[in-house]
């Protein structure tokens, strides 16, 4: 290991004996591969991608990947120094210093450095080693470094740092035996103690120290790849850059329709057939009706959209893993600055196309508190994947299959894009209003690191899709199942007497749910919604896709529409104006309890989610009202 450190025998007995570690920290600069290593060492599936700031809070896991289930590993957001610059960095520093409530004090540290930029990354080594915990230094992406002709003398580096150093590749899993050795080796608890480091007063001295160390250890930086620059010459081109950006976005939606729709239809047929096959297995009567017409129809109507949602996630995954996301933020900075936000806010906003909950967490990378709050408040406007089933259902039911420009773009795609655009414009306008009034602040500098392009691995993409499918199915099995069951029961109560002493379900309009729907109908009638839609709006406050399952259950419970496809049933029951108004309502309204909960957690008060909910509701109602009346005036 290191010659300048005192031999273990001379260490005070208070030093932890081998195996006494309980908690090990993963720390390092942003985008150095900590989470990839975490996933390797724990066997968990923490989200990884190719841009700085993917991890924004500490994650814990048992080190099952190296057979040490007795050890807890903590993954931390990336930091440049021990002076916190943003909220996520503060988390890392607090955990490292053992000041984080609810997180155990660390016993050992694994410092992960990107070997491609070792000189700069070493600047973090001095303050981390000075904390005095046993530390293992891992130089990640060593396979790439060697490929590109870089090299470093690890033994010499270990001597300089007085800590064991190993070359690894977290993505390929090579060199990880160093971790087991570090955790099991006798005397490892003391390795970092006697290190004499220069007093690191400021960044300049830290940098000159790092530069000296890397020179003394024979570090040869790998040749920078020309590939990334060549790709950027096109993707960040004055003209082609924005055009390609738009082409990618339009292409994604075309694929979601052109390839996704037949897949979803096929999947829907399979689900319906399963329902029919199960029908003879259940006794005719209320149980059959509950299971098949209530629960299965409700869940099935949402599950149908699984292929299309997975397609969308595949594209988001490719954008995140290649490193394009940071470029998108760069292109968008100009727009973001006119509304008073930082280009960095664009990264959480883009990831909100998948789901607002992780996006709101990701705002922790925004340094300015007011910018961060403004971003949190507008994030739910971005069209998350939970809106997709509602849009897809209504578009398939109401928008004709017309194509323009020789089949290049379809009317359905245009409507879909307009809905996404509506959400984006809603977000931008609100942000501008906030930033020019209550959240006014001086501009914070835009500092964004552009990662090198990387080829996304099939493994990481498929893991993402499997995880997403799991989330979707879990949602269907819990929230959607319970809501549909409750709706079915409410739709069949109170029971009415029929001749011969038997009981039967009431007319749907006379059931509890029917009366509730008719009670709220006056509030939504101006928008062109009937009472069934009203019930859907109420239940979709839990989660947006519940809307679709509610429609499935309600139209399935109504004898008049029972045998119809949900699209056909809706088509018979709604006007075009009402349908478009419903889509625009969903574009603006904040119907998601998980988002409200996360906003409360991140802003530390119920005030902001309440303000946000009411504001978005008012906007949604107003926009739907306008759309309904305009469409009615145009198309009669």
């Amino acid at each position: 290991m290191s010659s300048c450190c005192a031999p273990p025998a001379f260490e005070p007995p208070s030093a932890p004996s081998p195996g006494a570690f309980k908690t090990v920290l993963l720390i390092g600069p942003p985008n150095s591969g900590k989470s990839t290593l975490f996933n390797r060492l724990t066997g968990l599936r923490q989200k990884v991608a190719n841009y700085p700031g993917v991890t924004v809070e500490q994650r814990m896991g048992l080190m099952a990947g190296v057979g040490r289930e007795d050890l807890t590993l903590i993954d931390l957001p990336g930091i440049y120094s021990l002076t916190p610059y943003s909220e996520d960095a503060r988390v890392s520093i607090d955990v490292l210093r053992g000041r984080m409530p609810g997180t155990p004090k660390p016993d050992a540290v694994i410092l992960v450095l990107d070997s491609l930029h070792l000189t700069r990354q070493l600047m973090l080594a001095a303050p981390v080693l000075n904390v005095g915990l046993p530390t293992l230094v891992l130089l990640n992406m060593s396979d790439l470094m060697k490929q590109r002709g870089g090299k470093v003398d690890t033994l010499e580096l270990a001597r300089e740092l007085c800590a064991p150093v190993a070359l690894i590749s977290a993505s390929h899993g090579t060199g990880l035996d160093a971790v087991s050795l570090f955790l099991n080796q006798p005397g490892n608890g003391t390795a970092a103690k006697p290190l004499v480091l220069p007093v690191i007063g400021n960044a300049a001295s830290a940098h000159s120290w790092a530069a000296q160390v890397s020179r003394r250890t024979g570090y040869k930086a790998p040749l920078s790849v020309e590939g990334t620059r060549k790709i950027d010459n096109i993707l960040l081109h004055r003209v082609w850059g924005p055009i390609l950006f738009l082409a990618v976005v339009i292409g994604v939606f075309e694929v979601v329709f052109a390839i996704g729709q037949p897949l979803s239809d096929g999947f829907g047929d399979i689900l319906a057939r399963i329902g029919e096959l199960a029908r003879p297995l259940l006794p005719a009567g209320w149980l059959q009706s509950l299971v098949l017409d209530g629960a299965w129809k409700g869940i099935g109507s949402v599950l149908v959209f699984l292929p299309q949602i997975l397609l969308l996630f595949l594209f988001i995954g490719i954008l995140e893993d290649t490193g394009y996301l940071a470029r998108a933020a760069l292109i968008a900075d100009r727009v973001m600055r006119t509304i008073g936000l930082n280009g960095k806010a664009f990264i959480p906003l883009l990831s909100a196309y998948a789901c607002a909950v992780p996006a709101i967490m990701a705002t922790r990378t925004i340094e300015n508190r007011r910018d961060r709050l403004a971003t949190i408040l507008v994030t739910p406007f971005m069209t998350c994947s939970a809106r997709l089933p509602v849009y897809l259902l209504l578009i398939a039911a109401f928008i004709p299959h017309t194509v323009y420009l020789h089949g290049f773009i379809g009317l359905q795609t245009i409507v879909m894009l307009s809905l996404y655009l509506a959400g984006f414009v809603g977000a931008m306008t609100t942000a501008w209003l906030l930033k020019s009034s209550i959240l006014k602040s001086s501009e914070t500098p835009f500092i964004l690191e552009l990662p090198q392009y990387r080829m996304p691995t099939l493994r990481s993409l498929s893991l993402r899709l499997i995880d997403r499918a799991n989330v979707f199915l879990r949602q269907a099995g819990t929230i959607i199942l319970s809501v549909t069951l409750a709706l079915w029961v409410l739709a069949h109560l109170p029971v009415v007497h029929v001749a011969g002493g038997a009981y039967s379900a009431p007319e749907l309009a006379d059931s509890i749910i029917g009366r509730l729907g008719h009670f709220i109908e006056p509030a939504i009638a101006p928008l062109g919604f009937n009472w069934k839609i009203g019930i859907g709006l109420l239940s979709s406050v839990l989660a947006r896709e519940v809307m679709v399952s509610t429609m499935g259950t309600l139209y399935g419970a109504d004898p008049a529409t029972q045998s119809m496809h949900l699209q056909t049933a809706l088509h018979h029951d709604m006007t075009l104006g009402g349908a478009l108004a419903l889509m625009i309502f969903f574009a603006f309204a904040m119907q998601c309890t998980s988002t409200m909960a996360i906003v409360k957690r991140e802003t530390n008060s119920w005030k902001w989610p309440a303000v946000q909910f009411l504001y978005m509701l008012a906007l949604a109602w107003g926009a739907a009202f306008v759309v309904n009346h305009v469409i009615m005036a145009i198309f009669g």
Partner: protein
Amino acid sequence: MGKHERNELGINVCKADRNGRILKYDQSGRSFVAGLRQNVLPFRRAQGVRRVSVLSELKVGETGVLVALDLPESVQNHLMHMGFVPDALVTALRRAPAGDPTVFLVDGMEIALRHETAEAIRVSGPHVEPQPVELKTPPAPSASLQSEAAELIEASR
């Protein structure tokens, strides 16, 4: 002699008369404040040598040597940990499609900064990379240009 101040080129400029009144104009009426660099410089600017004093003045493809960061402490510290330390070589790599921000190459990393941030980072340059190809006969005009540039730098000190 009046109070001496240093302008951004580091040249001593007398801005007050003997009675201590601050002068804004010289005797011919030229402004010290506005047109200082164009009108009051004691020497003619050398043709062909462009002097750059802040990062945002670098053209795409040019490299400067970082001198100092005139930014709030926290931002300065953050940037320094990203490699923007004095004496570092910083290359302007490309501008975003909208013309701003600019991507800079420092320490092998690509970092995007907005114009107003780059404006607060002082550099000297453009720095000319030593050419690997040796010229058989160094052309005379360029040599004189270089000596003139050296003289210019000397004079500004």
